[in-house]
């Protein structure tokens, strides 16, 4: 229990240098993870993470923290499964309790077509060694007695894809853990420094960034800004098919924990879990419009609550405590965009939409490898930007639209 009863230094401010080997834009989990693995796996520590706000201010600090690997395509499953593997040892590796809570994850199916899709996912998952299967009504009721199994509702539950390893963990702890790990290996963390331009030489090669604190040279620049990707890509002159949509969530006041599973319903566009603090965490799918405005809406509340109460009606008289909004950098196939961009030495980690938190660990690992070696790691090769022009998409919509 090192450092339990005394204070510890997580990180301190560093002097902003004029030049770094690697500059990482974005102090979310992905950016911090990349910095950490650069230092740990490659001994590259002349690294700066530039964060325009405070660390974790973006999707990392706003998401509903579901991690799982029961995706649809082999490419997706392999990738997210590696992340789960890293997450499982992360608390020990970084000496920070990430509060990984292996609750088990239900994707509920209320229509015949949804049953078909969930069966397909379960079968594919099992072939690739992921613990996931379609279960029927009785088993659902056994595993989660709080769930409303009545046939007397608009969309009775018919079956569920059950994924026992599906977990939640503390989102802040992940970014802080990587930050402290990176900091103690020599990485500089700069909060309140905004990147305003990508600098290129005459040949079009990326040589650094412009920031609110002046220009900085860099051997390699990694953009890990998720919901701000369209802005940073504009600076670099890189075209992506990303559109930016708001995604909302809310929590209720805390009550004694009673729901010990993560519930997702694609048909009802809602998901529900209860945190270790006792709050019910309820979310939905993205708003249909694109915007860079974070104002929350009441129509989101009405829709998500109505549907959540179909699943767990006994929450009717709980009070809402807080609702918030984040950005989602959506891709056409619901898979990420990673690696080369066409601009030499400028790498992208983007397209995280509603599903990127669970990828934090594997993204850190693979983007560090990319930045250190200049070669595309095999795990992320299917997610290359050029796949859209080549029509080689990695379709994950069925597995990633509501169940983040």
């Amino acid at each position, binding site marked *: 229990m090192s450092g339990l009863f005394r204070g510890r230094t997580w990180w301190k401010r560093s002097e902003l240098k004029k030049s770094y080997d690697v500059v990482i834009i974005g102090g979310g989990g992905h950016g911090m993870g990349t910095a950490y693995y650069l230092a740990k796996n490659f001994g590259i520590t002349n690294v700066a993470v530039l964060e325009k706000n405070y660390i974790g201010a973006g999707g990392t600090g706003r998401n509903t923290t579901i991690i799982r690997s029961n995706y649809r395509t082999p490419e997706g499953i392999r990738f997210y499964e590696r992340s789960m593997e890293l997450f499982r040892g992360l608390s020990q590796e970084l000496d920070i309790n990430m509060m990984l809570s292996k609750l088990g994850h239900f994707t509920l199916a209320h229509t015949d077509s949804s049953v078909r899709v969930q069966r397909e996912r379960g*079968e594919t998952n099992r072939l690739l060694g992921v613990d996931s299967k379609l279960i029927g009504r009785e088993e659902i009721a056994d595993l989660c007695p709080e769930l409303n199994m009545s046939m007397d509702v608009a969309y009775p539950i018919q079956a569920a894809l059950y994924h026992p390893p599906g977990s939640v963990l*503390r989102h802040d702890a992940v970014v802080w853990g990587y930050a402290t790990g990176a900091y103690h290996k020599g990485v500089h963390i700069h909060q309140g420094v905004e990147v305003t331009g990508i600098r290129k030489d005459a040949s079009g090669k990326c040589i650094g960034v412009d920031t609110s604190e002046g220009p900085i040279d860099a051997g390699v620049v990694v953009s890990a800004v998720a919901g701000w990707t369209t802005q940073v890509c504009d600076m670099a002159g890189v075209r992506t098919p990303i559109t930016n949509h708001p995604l909302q969530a809310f929590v209720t006041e805390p009550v004694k924990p009673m729901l010990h599973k993560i519930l997702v319903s694609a048909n009802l566009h809602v998901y529900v879990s209860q945190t270790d603090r006792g709050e019910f965490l309820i979310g939905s799918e993205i708003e249909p419009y694109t915007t860079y405005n974070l104002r929350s*809406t009441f129509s989101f509340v009405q829709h998500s609550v109505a549907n959540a109460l179909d699943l767990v009606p006994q929450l009717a008289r709980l*009070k809402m405590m807080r609702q918030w909004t984040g950005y989602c950098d959506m891709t056409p196939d619901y898979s990420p965009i990673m690696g080369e961009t066409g601009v030499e030495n400028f790498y992208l980690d983007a397209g995280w939409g509603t599903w990127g938190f669970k990828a934090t660990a594997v993204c850190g690992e693979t983007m560090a490898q990319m930045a250190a070696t200049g070669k595309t790691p095999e795990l992320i090769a299917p997610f290359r930007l050029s796949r859209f022009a080549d029509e080689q998409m990695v379709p994950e919509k069925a597995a990633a639209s509501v169940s983040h």
Partner: protein
Amino acid sequence: MAGIDFEGTDVPVQQGDTIAAALYRSGTRIFSRSFKYHRPRGLYCVSGDCPNCLVTVDGEVNVRACECAARAGQKVTRQNAWPSADRDALAVIDKLHWALPVGFYYKAGIKPKFAWPMVEPMIRKMAGLGFVDHHDAPRHLERVNWHPDVLVVGAGVAGLEAALAAAGAGSTVMLIDETTPGARVASGPTRAAIDRLTAAVAAVPAITTSWNTPATGLFEGPLLIAVSGDETFHIHPQAIVLACGGREIHRVFTDNDLPGVMLARGAARLAGVHGVRPGARAVVWAEQPEALEHIAALTAAGVEVVAVVAAEGLDTSAVTCEVIRGEVTAAKGRKRVSAIVAAGRTIACDLLAVGSEIQPNEHLVRLAYDLPVVVAGDAAGHGLTLDDAMASGRAAGERAAAGPELYAVSPATPRTCGANGYVCLCEDVSVKDLEVAIDEGFESAELLKRYTTVTMGPCQGRVCADQLRAVAARKNPDLHRVANATTLRPPVRPITLEQAIAGAPHHMERHTALTAKHLSIGGTMMWAGPWKRVEAYGDVQAEYRAVRERVGLIDVGTLGKFLVAGPDATEFLERIYPMRVADLEAGRLRYGLLLEEGGVIIDDGTVCALGDGRYYLTVTTTGAERLESWMGDWAEAWGHDVYVVNQTASLGALNVAGPQARALLQKLSDDPLDRESFPYIRHRQITVAGVECLAMRLGFVGELAYELHFPASQSAKLWDAIIAAGAEWDIRPFGLMAQRLLRLEKGHIIIAQDTDFETTPWKVGMQWAVKLDKDDFVGKAALERHLKRDDRELLVPWTMGAGTACPPEGATVTMNGNLAGRVTSAWHSPTLGHPIGLAWVKRAYAAAGSSITVGGSPATVFSGHAFYDPEGEKLRA
């Protein structure tokens, strides 16, 4: 019980009591135990801001006792304590602060690796306040929409004046308040003004008032949500005046959370409004003049005010008791205050009334950015005099009536915070905790919030957000670059989940005119997009056989139906569809795919040429709504003069299918139906049983079939006539299940079941439905690009040997144990006697005749298109 049932004790209730007032009068001092350390907590703000009086009322958790009206028979229990809040066994945790350092949860339970999974369930048990009553189901509450010109929130002097001024300027006004006017204000000049203005407001017909109506959130629109008893208000004004007042700032000093430490307005409310004596001996801490006014209310209720601790410079000439200049630095006592320390002196008392600086109630204000909002009274500037507040209200009312600019939120005022004590009452976060966290690296307010959970409890920062900023700024004067404030989020007052959905009918279910009939003859229903359709009438096999062998009838009224007309209709459809339309002669029809710009199939259906450049279109059941606007968008984009009329709901449709379909219909119609007069893929206007129908000869189920479209009002009449006429062939109605099997035997795809968002016509072998030599159509450019590449996967038909069990839809296709595809449709074919289906298969294994493994059993890629009647003789009959 005659009064409140308070944990088994009968507590008397007086007129006008809140639960808090009744309990306090009967001697209750500890109202809850704190979240983390189980410290005793008593009434503090008495205005719904702090978490101290959260209790469970009739099964509803976290009810604010100070705001909830008391009623005889109410069951009230305190929370987060065992066995009782008065003697809480877990209070020992309060002695173990050293073992629960800030950030404890992040630092503990890491090693060994198996520890956390064991500790976590215990932490879960300790979390949360109150239990959920497992039987609570949502009540149906009403939603009321209001559309005043001006909405005024808050009926203090500023709000009342604003309402009068706005009404005076000709606006209709709605005025709401979370209590009743003056409910929290003891008698005095302010109360007198409120009473006078309230009477004036009541006399103005243009002002609608609603009391006990807390505003919970402010959204774009503007839309303000407020809760009023069993109704939820959605208020849609042109402009809003926020006059939600101010409150005394939370003061932090050693043991500042002891019961008996109360905000002065709260103590005065208990004394002056509820007639409850808040203590026997009181010290009043006065930072502003209003605090001194409360002395009268306290004295009148029988409290002995022994001393006033007054800020430097405050005029205390009217104070009769001892005055000490300075600040309170500590409270003393075990379960409640027994003394306080100020300016080095210890003064015995059982009540400290904290009359601190007034800070604006800025929760709604901070949500008002970019909305037409004016802020008035104490909500705008703090510590206004009565006259200033009234003038500010009048000015705001006039500006709102005139149409205000969009509101810009100003940065929060800097505050100070004591050196010791509890900043956050909800989560037990002390000044020390924050300072340690800052030293550890968490410098800014947002990081401190997340690390220590300060501001994250039920009060959502009402009590503590300013002190949090103060501590961060004091510790780190050069805190640069990062904003030192937390973001305010709705709701600003509690709203339960059932209140949030008041009046919202959420699942719309569409029915055809025949649903009642289907149900009456044993049809079971299933969802098909927004529609409920018949799944089956009890026996899918019998329904199937009727169609194949005799005749069957299906309700297809859910199909999307459009009339397309206008000078550019032909050109429009040529561009909408990938097949040819212009060469369709009147009386002919054609199957058509619909593609999006990427060349991906989004829908399918038929086009009937009606002549004179008019067309009748059908699309899938789920497609109608989406395609209506989709077509509208294209017409707009191309500037076409075309009308797209959605007839989905006004027309009914029935499909009469099976070898005897012609014989049956001929019994009901004088129009010629024979093969020559009315051949396959033609449509005719015919009269069946006296009903005018557009009849189409189509082959989705693979038999001779007539699809009839007619006014929806005639549905039952036509249905009955066909069933009666079909009796001699033992006609059967059939549902979606039988239809899916019938179409699968024909190898027809169902959009969205067999296709996904990457499916181009080539991938499903339907290139025949695309004419790339046309000038242009939606998706053409993408398809041309697409054709330069090989598809990774293809949709292929497959068969299995007789006696093999049919795999379920969704099963995988494998090759040597490796994933090679997935099954989208699968049935045991009764006619062929073996399983058949469609599957996406990797290109390498997709050639006709290839052996593949489907759901674990051997299968063969089928070489044709239709499994049944490949030459299509039956449907041409």
